[in-house]
């Protein structure tokens, strides 16, 4: 239908379509935006802190992936085109492990996804570890991009939300160093746009989860990878979640597979989609039992 309309208009529509839905999370209604394309195994994609699901547009439009996977990428509440819940103006946003986990599962349940594969990047790469641990029986596998059970902070998050520093500009300038230097300029700046346009205090609120409420070093060893396979993939230029952080985490999880990706930084799926594709396609093939 959409493709036909596009042809009639003389416009090439992308395969991905966007939808809105209202989902209850911890007793509050949240209007959530998501994009989807493809059919087959559900592949739910979690964006990084302070950004949105635009980061996954290349996967959503990759026919080799969508032939076998239904890719679903949603904006967390407060991010992108999802709204913050009613009353947001009276509170500080602070993401926690419980709220993040409940949000991901609420989206999966709303869409009736069966045994979805969850792929998250950065803080998304952190929460997939907790998902594998506590909800592994309901999942097909987890993929943690730039993920680890803990990492050392490298700046004071108070800089991210204050009246005398532009929150978007400083967020983008800080994370700019996490993009690999050889990543194409076009995609480097598209990635940074996600940070430049974030809502006030939202990146900082996400980092509450990342810095304060998600030290999983004492529990990742309990993940059962026979029940829920774990794949960890980290770019060599990521100095936030370093390759050493990821390899240490993988070593603690019996059966976890770790890959260090050359020429990539903290945003592999959007900073250099072609390079990331070389690494993610074999993992997706493996998950569906092709290799």
């Amino acid at each position, binding site marked *: 239908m959409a493709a036909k309309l596009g042809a009639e208009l003389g416009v090439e529509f992308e395969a991905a379509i966007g939808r809105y839905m209202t989902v209850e999370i911890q007793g509050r209604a949240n209007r959530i935006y998501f994009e989807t394309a493809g059919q087959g195994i559900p592949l739910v994609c979690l964006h990084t802190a302070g950004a949105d699901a635009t980061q996954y547009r290349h996967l959503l439009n990759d026919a080799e992936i969508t032939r076998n996977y239904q890719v679903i990428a949603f904006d967390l509440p407060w991010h992108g085109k999802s709204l913050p819940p009613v009353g947001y103006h009276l509170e500080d946003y602070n993401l926690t492990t419980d709220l993040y986990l409940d949000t991901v599962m609420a989206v999966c349940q709303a869409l009736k996804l069966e045994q979805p594969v969850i792929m998250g990047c950065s803080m998304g790469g952190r929460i997939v570890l907790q998902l594998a641990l506590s909800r592994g029986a309901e999942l097909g596998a987890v993929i943690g991009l730039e993920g680890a059970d803990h990492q050392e902070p*490298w700046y004071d998050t108070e800089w991210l939300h204050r009246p005398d520093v532009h929150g978007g*500009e*400083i967020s983008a300038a*800080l994370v700019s*160093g*996490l993009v690999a*230097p*050889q990543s194409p300029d076009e995609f480097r700046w598209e990635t940074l746009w996600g940070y430049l346009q974030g809502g006030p205090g939202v990146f900082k609120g996400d980092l509450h989860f990342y810095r304060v409420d998600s030290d999983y070093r004492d529990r990742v060893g309990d993940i059962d990878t026979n029940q829920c396979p774990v794949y960890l993939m980290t770019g060599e230029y990521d*100095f936030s979640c370093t390759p050493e952080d990821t390899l240490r985490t993988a070593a603690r999880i019996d059966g976890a597979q770790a890959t260090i990706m050359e020429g990539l930084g903290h945003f592999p799926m959007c900073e250099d989609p072609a390079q990331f594709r070389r690494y993610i396609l074999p993992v997706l093939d493996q998950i569906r039992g092709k290799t």
Partner: protein
Amino acid sequence: MAPNTDILHSIAAAVNNDAAMVHRGRYVDLNFLLSIGSDSHFLTISQGRIAAITLGGGLMRPWRFAIHITPEAWKKFRQPLPRPGYHDLFAMCKLGEARIEGEIHALMANLRYFKELLAHGR
């Protein structure tokens, strides 16, 4: 003349000829200290232009903030394609190869400008 005086002057010339860079720094007016090992220079920024480069860490000259980088890390940082860990100021700080001190509000409020200044032309 110190080991890095020439490269800093070439960075200054390139920044001052880069209209977009000067525009990004249009609210920046300050001195900052750049120390590469024992080789220290004051950089005077005026409305986004590098107006002066003055050698001498021993001078009793005030600075707003200071960036200290080891000579080895600075050399790696200035390569066209730096190795992981040497591609960004904060990456080098995390490695312990660089250090930032002083009143860093001006640095943080204009972070893109200062990061691009240090990496300009590499």
